[in-house]
């Protein structure tokens, strides 16, 4: 089972070979999602359509580059092939952003639209791969969040 801890001012993410492989599969399954513009991935800034268009024009490319860089950081760390991945706080934040984005993709695919969805899962959703991905990514995210707490 993956473990995350803070050690000597850094965040250590421990994942064995099987866990790394599973996480890489999850990243690839969700990152290249055709529904990457799902309900929780688009970010409106203004109610006014004109202002929002201008905002999207100015910030869209920058945000896309950041999201891609976050995912690249996770991929790179996983592909090093070590059980222990030791990262500084900025890199840990990149992991958090990437994991969160992947969860949002999974949530979109599962059709999650409201709080309390855990209590009203239909059988199809309960059996979906994305539900397990959502859970695993959340567990890892919680570990990193906990490890970052002392730095706040």
């Amino acid at each position, binding site marked *: 089972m993956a473990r995350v801890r803070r050690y000597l001012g850094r965040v250590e993410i421990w994942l064995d070979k099987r866990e790394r492989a599973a996480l890489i599969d999850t990243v690839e399954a969700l990152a290249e999602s055709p529904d990457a513009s799902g309900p*929780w*991935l688009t*970010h*409106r*800034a*203004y*109610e006014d359509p004109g202002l929002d268009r201008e*905002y999207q024009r100015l*910030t869209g490319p*920058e*945000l896309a580059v*950041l999201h891609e860089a976050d995912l690249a950081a996770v991929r790179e760390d996983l592909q090093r092939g070590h059980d222990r991945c030791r990262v500084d706080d900025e890199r840990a*934040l990149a992991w*958090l*952003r990437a994991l*969160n*984005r992947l*969860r*949002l993709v*999974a*949530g979109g695919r599962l059709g*999650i*639209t*409201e*709080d*309390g*969805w855990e209590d009203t899962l239909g059988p199809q959703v309960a059996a979906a791969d994305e539900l397990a991905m*959502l859970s695993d990514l*959340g567990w890892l*995210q*919680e570990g990193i*969040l906990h490890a*970052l707490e002392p730095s*706040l």
Partner: protein
Amino acid sequence: MCGASPDASAEGRLGYPLGVPVESPVRREAPARDATTVRDLPWNVVVWNDPVTLMTYVVLVFRRLFGYNQETATRLMLQVHNEGRAVVATQPREQAEVSVTRLHAFGLQATLAKG
């Protein structure tokens, strides 16, 4: 007269050369309330609930981006969760837009609204 005479080459606190005659100030109409003034009005940074993002993650983002302590960040997160939205900062428009972009970078739903 006590003390030294004003030195014509020295400047006063408001930048006028001391000892040099200056014209009397002329009363002018105050500038109309223009676009600059409007732009400087505070804008609210509003964060909206989504059912997927972890609550603990939202707290961390609020703490990192706005420097809130754990208590304030948690209160705002719970307001987002329970009421669907919360104003997390009130700032000049340019700054508010930067805050919204940073929230978007962390994957949160955030918008700007005139304060």
